[in-house]
């Protein structure tokens, strides 16, 4: 029991890291990682939505008819995203401005729906909570790492703290091209460390498209 709890929590951090191993949720990863702070806060926002939606979906999993489960999951997720968005607008307006539409776009973040479909819809609330926490933490760590690298290379500071002064840094790393470049290099590093080829995931990895099913109820 205790072992399993620990396992469900820790798997998201390294073994099944949503960004580096599962390769999910690329859009926010690339878009908001311009600074370490933005990345970290985006990670926290996504984590809170993930944990809350995982728990609620797990509680109501037996009430939802199988056929409409994906739309039902999306409605729950969208509800929590709206709550996070309103809270952010009220208490952290600057951050809300910086993250822009990527906050409401947490709704369509593959990680959250993928966890609902793969885990929370099948497991009890306690394990779903741990799964959400672990996966969210893995996402936050990965995003913050990319943010730190980009901020440091692009402007010579980390979390807004100036480290290198008086030397002009290549602003390339703060631009969109830098995001692709840094993530590409990191992926190659991960591939070298794990000795596995990092495959490009097809969009079919995302359960979102299960909204439309054929006559047999399959995607």
């Amino acid at each position, binding site marked *: 029991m205790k072992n399993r709890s620990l396992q469900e929590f820790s798997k998201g951090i390294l073994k099944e890291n949503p960004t580096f191993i599962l390769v999910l949720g*690329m859009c926010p990863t690339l878009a908001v990682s311009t600074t370490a702070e933005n990345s970290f806060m985006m990670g926290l926002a996504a984590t809170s939505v993930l944990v809350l939606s995982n728990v609620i979906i797990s509680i109501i999993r037996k009430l939802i008819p199988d056929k409409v489960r994906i739309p039902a999951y*999306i*409605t729950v997720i969208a509800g929590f995203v709206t709550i996070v968005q309103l809270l952010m607008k009220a208490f952290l307006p600057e951050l809300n401005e910086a993250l822009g539409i990527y906050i409401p776009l947490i*709704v369509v973040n593959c990680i959250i729906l993928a966890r609902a479909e793969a885990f929370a819809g099948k497991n009890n609330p306690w394990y779903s909570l741990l799964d959400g926490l672990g996966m969210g933490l893995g996402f936050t760590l990965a995003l913050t790492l990319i943010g730190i690298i980009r901020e440091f290379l692009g402007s010579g500071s980390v979390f807004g703290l100036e480290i290198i002064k008086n030397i002009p840094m290549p602003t390339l790393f703060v*631009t969109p091209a830098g995001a692709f470049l840094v993530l*590409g290099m990191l992926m190659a590093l991960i591939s070298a460390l794990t000795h596995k*080829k*990092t495959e*490009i995931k097809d969009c079919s990895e995302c359960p979102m498209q299960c909204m*439309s099913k054929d006559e047999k109820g399959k995607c």
Partner: protein
Amino acid sequence: MSGDTFKLIIYISFGTILMNNFVLTNFLGICPFLGVSKKLNSAIGMGLAVIFVMTIASVVTSLTNTYLLIPNNLEYLQTLAFILVIAGFVQFIEMFMKKVIPPLYKSLGIYLPLITTNCAVLGVALLSVQNEYNLWQSALYGASAGVGFMLATIIFAGIRERLDLNDVPKYFKGLPIALITAAFLSMAFTGFKGIFG
């Protein structure tokens, strides 16, 4: 047509296709961009499907926003309302196409479920509300975003077809080299930023 309208048309369309390309500068729709760009043919099919869905999604969400959410002071439900409206509508079109125009369904239909509710489509809807576009402006914005996606994906697919013939270092095979290619493509698109001075 007045000069201002013409200016706005040019601004929205070229601005969205080249300067603020949806994939390469806004990072919306990365998954279909990377996933369906192995072959040029599928990139074209996907591109057309995206243009179609984005245009429809912007029109439908613009109508929802103007006639349903704003009169009832429900703007805070935008995210929720948009995603459900888009998903429902695209699903309806898919079924309609399957029954009424089977040839079109065969060439475009397979891509429809892939993009029903990805971040690019919801992104178009949210951005056109944020920019306070009216109905025709949102439609133009949606179509231009789709064209921008198609342009980027087709160029990318062309490069990747060539890349397959090259000797890529072992650990860079697959996703890493694709991302680095996208980085150069994105750099090239940065050059368009100066068009309007």
